[in-house]
């Protein structure tokens, strides 16, 4: 009788512990990467570029069993992101990516508490001197320059409109590069810029784009996830061309998107993984460039680009890689 009671108690205890721990332990420990992002993973811009890269790396390395991915999106409020970063770190993730320049101070405060975790954050170049922090950025001005060259050759009205969110980070550097690219081809072209003050206000971005169009612009470019509004405005007009950045935006308006600068983080992610496996947890800075294939100019196949314009674009790319042309962010 007593024995049966003990058996029951043991079974009950097992049951309780089984219920209390809902996550089963995997037989093989995968490499665990978590990413915290300020916008949606489907934003057609900054966040999506990182998520796509992670998915690609996961696929290449063998799928979910080998690489575990977790994400927290729409963390535009830094305190929430900090909680997420800290939480992933305390769960023992191998790499925690803080994908947003506003997360820097959070990483600075959290990284020392978890010396065994690799933190990667961007876009910035500051590793805070910590051995387990990588910093990464994109030389967005390079692709901006190339786009600028192409745009300058294609514009007929000699007016180009730029719709920017907030004048910070890679939004600013991309546009700076773009303006230089335009000037290199034809300094008489007017490039007018508007900043909506928000990364997410699509309606305002649309109005900004429409304002540029009404003021005579026949080519538009811009940055952030709210540019879908600008692309929509271009589409409504039907004749305005678009140059994109951060993501290949051709799918939004196949007849009007000429080219997009694409952020390709896969090389960087693979290197971080490799370094960690070899024992280095951080301390380096990565910059996506045309040279190292981190930046790519994706020409939209659905848009027929005149041969001489494409040649000019290709030349600009070569020049930047070779260093004959320097773009100052």
């Amino acid at each position, binding site marked *: 009788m007593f024995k049966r009671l003990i058996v029951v108690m043991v079974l009950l205890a097992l049951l309780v512990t089984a219920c*209390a721990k809902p996550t089963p332990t995997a037989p093989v420990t995968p490499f665990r990467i978590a990413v915290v992002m300020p916008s949606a993973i489907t934003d057609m811009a900054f966040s999506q570029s990182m998520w796509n890269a992670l998915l690609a790396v996961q696929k290449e390395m063998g799928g979910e069993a080998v690489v575990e991915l*977790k994400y927290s999106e*729409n963390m535009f409020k*830094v*305190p929430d992101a900090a*909680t997420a970063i800290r939480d992933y770190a305390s769960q023992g993730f191998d790499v925690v990516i803080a994908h947003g320049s506003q997360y820097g101070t959070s990483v600075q405060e959290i990284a020392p508490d978890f010396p065994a975790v690799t933190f990667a954050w961007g876009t910035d170049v500051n590793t805070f001197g910590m051995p387990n922090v990588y910093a990464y950025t994109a030389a967005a001005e390079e692709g901006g320059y190339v786009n600028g060259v192409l745009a300058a050759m294609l514009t007929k009205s000699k007016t180009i409109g730029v719709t920017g969110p907030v004048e910070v980070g890679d939004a600013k550097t991309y546009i700076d590069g773009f303006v230089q690219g335009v000037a290199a081809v034809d300094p008489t072209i007017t490039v007018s810029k508007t900043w909506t*003050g928000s990364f997410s206000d699509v309606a305002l971005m649309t109005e900004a784009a429409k304002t540029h169009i009404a003021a005579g612009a026949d080519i538009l470019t811009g940055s952030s996830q709210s540019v879908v509004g600008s692309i929509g405005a271009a589409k409504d007009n039907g004749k305005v061309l678009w140059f994109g950045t951060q993501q290949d935006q051709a799918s939004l308006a196949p007849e009007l998107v000429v080219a997009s600068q694409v952020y390709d983080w896969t090389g960087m992610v693979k290197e971080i993984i490799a370094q960690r496996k070899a024992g280095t947890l951080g301390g380096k800075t990565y910059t996506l460039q045309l040279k190292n294939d981190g930046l790519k100019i994706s020409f939209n196949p659905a848009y027929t680009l005149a041969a001489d314009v494409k040649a000019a674009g290709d030349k600009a790319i070569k020049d930047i890689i070779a260093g004959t042309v320097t773009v100052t*962010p």
Partner: protein
Amino acid sequence: MPPEKDEKAVHARRFDFSGLFFNALLPLAGMLVALLIGAIMLLILKVNPLTAYAQMVNGAFGSVSGITQTLVKATPLLLVGLGICIAFRASVINIGGEGQIIVGALAATWFPLTFRTWPGWLLIPSTLLVGFAAGAVWGFIPGILKARLKVNEILTTVMMNAVGLQLMNLLVRSVLMDPAVIVSGTYLAQSERLPEQAWLVRLVPKTLLNTGSLIAVALAIVVYIFLWRTTIGYRIRAVGFNAEAARFSGINVPFNQALSLTLAGGFAGIAGAIEVMGVQHRLLEGITSGYGFSGIVAALFGGLHPLGTIPASILFGALLVGGDKMQRAVQVPNSLIDAILGLVVLFVVGSALWSRRWAAHRQMAAAKNQEEQA
């Protein structure tokens, strides 16, 4: 004493008890209904609701990190909720929590950065006071507009939220911007780190829990004493219970309504100050995290009683922390959490106030009956 009257007196007292019963139980019941609907939504997303909710509980209470996060989130909820208790008891609705938190945070950033040589024992209390004052001003403006010009406070407080937000955006991207980010060229929307004397002491290492939480609890007791043991507090409650009767007995109704809004703003301002001084150590965008609205829900959960708001804000903090944790664990979109929280608000508000009015109504009827008997 005639047995009838006795019965009615007992009846009234018994009713009192069941009224309280309703106050605590019905909101919880409302919350459960909302969570049930959430479970259905989880099922549609092919997530096991039991796993998901288990993760939620685990996230909020299952670890030191979780518990401290819950308490850290509960602190601003409690403070805003205290202000709501005061305002609501005067029948004034303060939806301006977000803006009041922001200006409190702004003041609590500007002050230590300006007087950065002051010693901690002087700097901390004065910064808290400055935060209170800033929030109080933000509550005073809608308050005086209501008192003098009868402008509806719901609208003015919502407007003040927007103004406060833009004001912070403007300042944090220009005057208050961290010199370090200007140098590094990132131009992030954040302020310089506060001088260390202005930091609130961390209670548990490696977590964000700080003395601000203790300050909040102490203030809850203060508010309780204020509302039930002082004349001003009595007047505020009288105005909320029956404005006409209060006016009849000589209480200045508009003044007390404005006062309650001002105080509510002040408490929200302290919430902002503590977020800056204890949690973030600087001002950054998004510092309010919606506490201005969720603090209202916390106060409702707590039956609009300052002491009841303490467990209520812990519970709501747990919902927030657990919800985020659930999102990370089962990878549901966090918009699901927002939707569930919206339903919680709807159901709690739909149940609690109805029962309160009903209970108050019956109480007044019972009291009237007693009078007639006399």
